[in-house]
C-alpha cells in the first residue's frame, strides 16, 4: 500500500518534470507573430519531414538562446520568429535554451526529423561535432547565426555572425584612445564560454597583459545578469579599491553597474570619474550614451534573420553564398560622436 503510494508520487513527479522540460524553456509566443508554426512546444513537435520542392514549405529548425536573457536576445528571437513564418514559405520549429547540452539534444532530434535547414545560435562554442556530422550525413544544411562555434568551415553551409573578437578589439582600442594615465578596470563578464564572452574578454585580457598601466580591479562573471553586476561593483566600492573603467560585456550588466555607482555617488559617463562601457543594441542603452551617462556602447546587431532568409533562398536555388562567414555590420559608438539618427537606425 505504502509502496504504491510512493511509486505513484514518483511517477507524478517524473510526469511533472517531463512536462516542465517541454514547456518551461520555451517562451510564450510573442503577440506580433501569431503565424509562427509550432512556436511553443518545439521539444515535442516533430517537424514535417516531407521533402520540399518548389512551392512547398521549407522546414527549418531554429535553435536559439533564451529570449529573456537580455534585450539583445529578445530582439534577435523576435526577428527570427517574424521571418521564418508560413507566409514566407517556412515551416519552422523553434527551440530556446541557454543550456548547450539541451540545445545539442534538440538539434540532434531536429536532424533526425530531417529538417532542411538547421539554424543555430550555440550557447557554447564547443561540443557540436556530432550534431554537425549527423547533419551532414542526413543532408541537413546548418546555418549559424549570431554566434560561432568551433568547427571546420566545411561543416556548415554559412554563418551570419557577430564578430565578437572584433567587437572586443574595437572597444579596447576606443578605451586605449581615451589616454588615461592608468586604467583600473572592473571587468564584468557574460556567460562563461559563450562566443560573446570569449571575444569581448579576449581583447581586453590581451591588452591588460600587455600594458603596465592597465589593471583589473575585479574580473567576475555576472552571467549577463544586471543584479549580479550591481553586487559585484557594490562589493568593489565597499572595499574602497580605486577604479575608473567599467567594462561590462552587455548593456544589462552595465546598467546594473551604473546603479551601484549612482548609489555610491560616483560620477560616470562623459565628464565623470568612471568610464562605462556596454555592448549590444538596446535603445535605452543608446539613449544612455547619448545623454552622456555612459561613455561607450559596442553595437552588436541582433537582426540577422533577413540575411539568413536570403542565404536559404539562394541555397534552395542552388546558389552557394559568396562568403561562408558573413559578419553583421557592427561598430562602436561613444558619447561624443553618437547622434540621434544612429539611435533610430540601430536601436532595438
Amino acid at each position, binding site marked *: 500500500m505504502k509502496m504504491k503510494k510512493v511509486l505513484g508520487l514518483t511517477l507524478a513527479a517524473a510526469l511533472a518534470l517531463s512536462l516542465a522540460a517541454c514547456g518551461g524553456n*520555451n*517562451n510564450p509566443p510573442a503577440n506580433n507573430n501569431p503565424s509562427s508554426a509550432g512556436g511553443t512546444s518545439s521539444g515535442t513537435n516533430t517537424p514535417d519531414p516531407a521533402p520540399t520542392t518548389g512551392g512547398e514549405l521549407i522546414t527549418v529548425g531554429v535553435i536559439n538562446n533564451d529570449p529573456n536573457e537580455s534585450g539583445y536576445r529578445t530582439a534577435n528571437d523576435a526577428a527570427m520568429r517574424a521571418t521564418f513564418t508560413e507566409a514566407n514559405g517556412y515551416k519552422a520549429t523553434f527551440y530556446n535554451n541557454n543550456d548547450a547540452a539541451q540545445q545539442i539534444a534538440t538539434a540532434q532530434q531536429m536532424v533526425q526529423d530531417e529538417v532542411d535547414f538547421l539554424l543555430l545560435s550555440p550557447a557554447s562554442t564547443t561540443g557540436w561535432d556530432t550534431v554537425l556530422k549527423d547533419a551532414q550525413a542526413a543532408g541537413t544544411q546548418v546555418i549559424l547565426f549570431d554566434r560561432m562555434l568551433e568547427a571546420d568551415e566545411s561543416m556548415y553551409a554559412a554563418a551570419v555572425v557577430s564578430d565578437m573578437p572584433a567587437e572586443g578589439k574595437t572597444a579596447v582600442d576606443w578605451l586605449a584612445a581615451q589616454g588615461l594615465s592608468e586604467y583600473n578596470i572592473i571587468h564584468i563578464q557574460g556567460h562563461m564560454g559563450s562566443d560573446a564572452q570569449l571575444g569581448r574578454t579576449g581583447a581586453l585580457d590581451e591588452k591588460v597583459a600587455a600594458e603596465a598601466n592597465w589593471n583589473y580591479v575585479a574580473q567576475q562573471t555576472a552571467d549577463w545578469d544586471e543584479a549580479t553586476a550591481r553586487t559585484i561593483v557594490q562589493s568593489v566600492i565597499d572595499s574602497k579599491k580605486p577604479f575608473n573603467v567599467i567594462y561590462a560585456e552587455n548593456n544589462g550588466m552595465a546598467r546594473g553597474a551604473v546603479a551601484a555607482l549612482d548609489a*555610491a555617488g560616483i560620477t560616470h559617463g562623459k565628464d565623470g570619474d568612471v568610464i562605462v562601457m556596454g555592448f549590444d543594441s538596446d535603445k535605452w542603452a543608446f539613449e544612455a550614451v547619448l545623454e552622456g551617462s555612459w561613455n561607450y556602447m559596442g553595437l552588436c546587431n541582433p537582426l540577422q534573420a533577413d540575411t539568413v532568409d536570403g542565404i536559404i533562398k539562394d541555397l534552395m536555388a542552388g546558389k552557394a553564398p559568396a562568403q561562408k562567414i558573413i559578419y553583421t555590420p557592427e561598430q562602436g559608438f561613444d558619447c561624443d560622436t553618437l547622434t540621434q539618427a544612429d539611435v533610430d537606425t540601430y536601436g532595438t
Partner: protein
Amino acid sequence: MTTPVKNPETQVKRPDESLFKRLTRQQLFIPVAALVLLVLFNLIADPSFFAVSMKENSLGNPVLSGNMISVLDNASELVILAIGMTLVTASSGGQDISVGATMTIAGSVILRMVCGGQVTADTMQMNLFLAVFIGIVVTAFFGAFNGALVAYFNIQPMVATLIMYTAGRSIAAWINNNQLPIINDVAFKYAGTFLPGIPVPTPIFITILMIVIFWLVLKFTNLGLYTQSVGINPNSSRLNGINPKLVKLLTYVILGVCVAVAGYIRISRSGSINYSRNAENIEMDAILAVALGGNALSGGKFNIYGSILGAYVIQFLTTTLYKYEVPSTALPAYKAVVVILLVVLSAPVVREKLASIKKAPAKAVKEVA
C-alpha cells in the same frame, strides 16, 4: 557521609554540563555560531570590512556605504522570503521552490502596471501603491494555487511548487509580451535604493516593517500555534477543531504576499527585469535560511527569528565571498559546503555525539580541579 561529598560535586557539574547542552541544543546556536565565525574571520582577515562611511549619491542625498550596509540591504529579499518559507515549512513539512519564479511574476506585473504597457516609461503610469497591491494580489493567488495543491490534493510541496518553478518565468515574460520593460521614474526606485534625505537603504526599513508585522501577528493571533500544531500532527489538530487544510493554504498565501514584497524590492533596485535571471536560485537560499535557523524542514515547531538570522548569515557569507573575489559562479559551491556542514551538524546522531564529547572533557577538567 558520602552524600554530602557527592552533592556539591553534582551541583557543580550539572549546571556546567547543562550549559553546554543548553547551548548546543539551543535552536539559535547554529546561526549565531555561524555569524560569530564570519565576523571573527572578517575581523582577523581585514577589519576594514566593517567600516561604514557616509557618501553622497548621484541625486545628492547623503547615503551610508560599506560592506555591513550592503549585507543588511541585500539580505532584505531573502529575509522576507525566509519568514514566509518558515511558515510554509512548519505547516506542510515541505518547501515552496517556486518563490524565485513567482517573485519574477510579481516584478513583471508591477512593471507592466507602472509602465502602462510601454517598453520604456519615464514616469509612472499608475499609482505605485496600487501597482504593488495588484502584484501582491497576483502572487497571493499563485500562493493559493500552490497551497491548494498541497493542502487539498495532498501533493508533496516540492512537486506541487515545481509547476510554478518551471512555468513562472514564462508567465512573467508573457505578462509583458516578452518585452523587457524599463521604468526611469526616480520615485519608483525609492523602495530599492534610498528615500530622499534618508541615508539608510529603504529595503532595510521594509524588512524591519515586515519583521514587526509578523512579530505582532504571531504574538496576537493563533497563527503560530495553529501552524505548529498542523505541522506536528494534522489529524489531532483537526480533532481539536483546527482545519489543517485551511491553515496550510493560508501559510502559502502568506508566503505569496512575502514574495510580492520581495519581488517589488528586487525590481525597484534597477527599475527593470530580466525574466530568466531575476532572483535566480533565491528559493534555495530561502530554504537554506530556514534550515540554518534550526527549523526542522519536516515541519512542526518553528522559529521565524532563527530563519531571519539564517538569511542574514547567508548574505554575510555571500558578501564576504565577493569581497575576497571568489568568482560569482563558484558561490553556490561555497554555499553547498555550508549546507553540508549544517545538515551534518543538525543530524540527531551527530548532536548526541557532540553532547557526549563535550561532557567528557568537562568531567576531566572538574576532576583535575
